[in-house]
Every structure is written in structure tokens, then in C-alpha cells.
């Protein structure tokens, strides 16, 4: 990375502490959407900064009552059934994905609403298209084989900050998947490791890892989703964490074909060259 990137890295600490001007903050926010390394460092700085805050004291009484009073109107009944697009709508371009780019990109910062697909860094895909196409074809081939072996299961979302041994206990705490949900079981080649993923009708997705060992110092697990032939990075996790939350465009749920997890050097990669640790496909 050159001087251009150094201009941003120098400001990462100040940005994390909101100690930069508004115009610099805007430029930095744009940069962070396309640079997982800087975004990861900002997250680390903010976590450290959180320890500079007081602990133990309660907020003054009355605030909760005001919050409760202003909560949004009652939500509609939970939509656990997939909303299938019309046949004509299904031919529309896939959100911001590029089916022919054959390039995997890292997940960016959360988008402004709950329906946007993870965006692609098109400039990076243009520079590395040739190299990544070969690797993506390899991963696609692996996923195609896995598609013959996967059985759809229900999903649980486990505690992300603590490991909970009894997954059924946790499953009772969360919405039960209904018919029409997109759900996938991921397995390792030896079937000794498993993970489960579910995507609900509104595009909210969760990947739950049952028993992956810690990735090791300097490594992370990276989650990939195959959407209409393109490998998208859906996030990274590690250090014993076993839940990854992601979002896909509800209009593109039918294009979601498979999921995989690889082990990468922190904070993740744009394109993986690793064999999946676990992989699973929608049937």
C-alpha cells in the first residue's frame, strides 16, 4: 500500500475517537467501506476506547420510559415465508453483484437499510479478474460437489460472546424457521465439522458454527456466499466466536446457492485460495 493509503492509516486512531474534522471523516468513511484492514483497526481502537468509559453506574431513572414510549409501532407478523419474486422480476440484474466478475470481495460496513446486498469493490475486481477467475472456478467446483451432499436443516443462532454447549437451549430462545426459509448445513470433507446457515425472507442471515477450533493467532475464519455464480465475502470471525450475521438483498435470495468457510490471515482476503473448512449448498 502506498502513500495514498498511509494518509488514511495515520488517521485511523483519531477517526476511531471521533477526533477528526467532518470532511476528513467523510473521506475516511468512504475508504473504510472498501478497506477491511483499516475497518478492522478502527473497530479495535473503538473497542479499546470503550474501556475508557465508566462501568457499574446506572442511567438516571425515566430514560427507559421515554424510550419505550417512542418505540416504533407494533411490527407486522414475522415473515418467515420467502417472498418469491415474479418470473419477470427474477431476470433483473442482481443488486450490486456482478455475475461475470468472478471476484470475491470483502464485506463492507453495514448498509443503510436491512435490504441491501453486500457491495462489491468493482475497481479491485477489474485489477485481479484474471487471477481470481481461476480460483473462483475452483471454489465453485467444490461447491457444486457439495451441493449433492447437503441436506437442509433448521438453524440456531448461538450466543456470540460465549459458547453455549446446549444448542437446543439457544434454539428455543429464537424464532423457529418456517417453511420457505433458506437453510443450509455446511460440513467438512470428513464430516467432523459442521455449521448451519439460514437466510430469512427479509434477507437477514445467520451462520452458526457448531464446533470449529479457534483459528489461531493471526488467523480468522472467513464466510463466503455464492450468489448467482459470484463468491461474496460475508464476514470474518474467530477467537472462539461462533455466530456470523450477514445480510443479502431479499430480491436475490433465490440466487443464493451455497456457503463456505475458509481460514485466512487476519483480517481476511479479497479472494480465497484456501480449501473450504466447511461447505454447504442449497438444495
Amino acid at each position, binding site marked *: 500500500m502506498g502513500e495514498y493509503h498511509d494518509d488514511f492509516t495515520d488517521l485511523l486512531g483519531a477517526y476511531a475517537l471521533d477526533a477528526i474534522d467532518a470532511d476528513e471523516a467523510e473521506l475516511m468513511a468512504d475508504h473504510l467501506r472498501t478497506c477491511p484492514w483499516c475497518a478492522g483497526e478502527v473497530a479495535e481502537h473503538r473497542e479499546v476506547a470503550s474501556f475508557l468509559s465508566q462501568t457499574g453506574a446506572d442511567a438516571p431513572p425515566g430514560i427507559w420510559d421515554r*424510550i419505550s414510549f417512542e418505540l416504533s409501532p407494533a411490527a407486522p407478523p414475522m415473515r418467515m415465508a420467502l417472498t418469491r419474486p415474479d418470473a419477470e422480476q427474477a431476470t433483473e440484474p442482481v443488486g450490486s453483484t456482478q455475475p461475470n466478475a468472478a471476484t470475491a470481495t470483502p464485506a463492507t460496513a453495514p448498509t443503510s437499510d436491512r435490504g441491501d446486498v453486500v457491495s462489491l469493490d468493482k475497481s479491485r475486481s477489474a485489477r485481479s479478474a484474471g487471477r481470481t477467475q481461476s480460483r473462483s472456478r475452483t471454489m465453485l467446483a467444490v461447491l457444486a460437489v457439495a451441493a449433492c451432499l447437503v441436506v437442509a436443516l433448521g438453524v440456531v443462532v448461538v450466543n456470540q460472546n460465549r459458547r453455549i454447549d446446549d444448542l437446543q437451549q439457544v434454539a428455543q430462545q429464537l424464532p423457529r424457521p418456517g417453511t420457505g426459509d433458506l437453510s443450509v448445513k455446511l460440513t467438512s470433507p470428513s464430516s467432523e465439522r459442521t455449521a448451519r446457515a439460514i437466510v430469512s425472507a427479509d434477507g437477514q442471515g445467520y451462520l452458526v458454527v457448531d464446533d470449529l477450533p479457534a483459528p489461531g493467532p493471526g488467523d480468522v475464519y472467513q464466510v463466503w456466499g455464492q450468489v448467482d455464480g459470484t463468491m461474496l465475502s460475508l464476514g470474518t470471525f474467530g477467537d472462539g466466536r461462533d455466530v456470523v450475521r450477514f445480510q443479502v438483498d431479499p430480491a436475490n435470495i433465490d440466487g443464493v446457492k451455497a456457503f463456505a468457510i475458509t481460514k485466512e490471515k487476519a483480517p481476511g482476503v479479497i479472494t480465497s485460495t484456501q480449501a473450504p473448512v466447511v461447505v454447504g449448498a442449497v438444495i
Partner: protein
Amino acid sequence: MTSESSGTDPDSAEPIDSPSTEASSSVDEFDEGNMRGDLSEVSDAGLVVAISRYHEPALAEAYRRHAGAVYGLARRLLSDDARAEEIVQEVFLRLWNSPDKFDPGRGTLRSYLLAQCHGRSVDLLRSDTSRRRREENDLRRTAETGYDLEREVWDLTLADHVRDAIARLPEGEREAIRLAYLGGHTYREVATMLDEPEGTVKSRIRSGLKHLRSELVAAGVGLETGGEG
């Protein structure tokens, strides 16, 4: 339109669940029997999952866990009880309305809420009206005590290991971080206050945070984000 009072009282020792509220009743596929009385065992990430399903008791539990820290930080920055309460309200309503903004892969819920609080508080701080009020408070505080009593009181509320970790930072790094984070100043303002080049201040803030992270890890603090920056 607003929801009826949920009957959930986060200020009490145990959350009071009332499944008869509109928000709660709407999540009819939720297993209320398993959630009732068990929220204290659910992780922060699990609470956010529930919040995304419009489960008000989950928001109440998140509030019970973290509102104190959020209020304390806002109060420290703004020196204004009413403004600090508004910030708390805003932060938790934002969590309710946009739970997808929280990325568990990027840190804890507490660090997310405090980052939201800090950002919003700094925005207010840098408005003309708030700045004048703060300057007046600073002058009055110094005149009355000859030192920053509020800073001393703040330090006393930190956990011992955090206070020790901060004390081990080089003074330049410690002061830069304190003025930036707890003072709400930009790095340019900090550079002026410390009579240092802007590049030096930027570097000290960044290196100070890295050193602080190392100190906290060495003290056995579990930090969620992985890898070294």
C-alpha cells in the same frame, strides 16, 4: 403511533416481561416461554437478534446492561444531564430501529453503543452553543478547584486494570487520547493545546490505542476483535 408501555422495567433487578404489548405480541412465532426470565443469560449478540425481531424486552435488557456506561460517557463529554439523557435515548432508539448497524464481527455491543454515543455527543459538543457552555464550565471548574476535579473523579470510576494500563502509557500518548476521547477535541485542536505537530498527535493517538490494547490484553482483558492492528 406508539406502543403501549411494555411493563418492562430495566431499572429493576429483574426484567418484567409483559407479553401483552403490541411489540411483543407481534412476534408470535417467538417462544415467549423460553425468553421470559432468561434474558440475563442471553448474549449481547443474541439480544440484538431478538431486537431485530421487535422484541422489546431484549432492548430493555440491553438497556439495563449498557445504559449506565452510555450515559456516563455522554455526561462526561457534554457536562449536561439533560443532553446526556437525550443521547442515551437516541442511541437505544437507533439500536431498536437499525439493529443491522451492529456488526458483531467488529466488536462488542457495548463498544458499538459507546461509539454511537461518543460520535453523537461530539457532534453536539462542536456545535456553537455547546462549545460555549463547555468553555464556561471548564473555566469555572479550573477557577474553583485549580485542577480538573471531574477528570479525577472519572479516573476513579475506571476499573483498576484499566487505570493501570492507562498509567503505563507514555504521557504524550495518554494526554492525546484523553483530550481527543474524553475532551471531544479534534487532533488539530489537541495539537494546538499540546503545542505539538498535527502529525505527531495523530501518531500518538494511534500508537497509544495500540499500546493500551496490548496492556489490556496483558492484564487479561478479553477483547472481542482479533488480530493486532
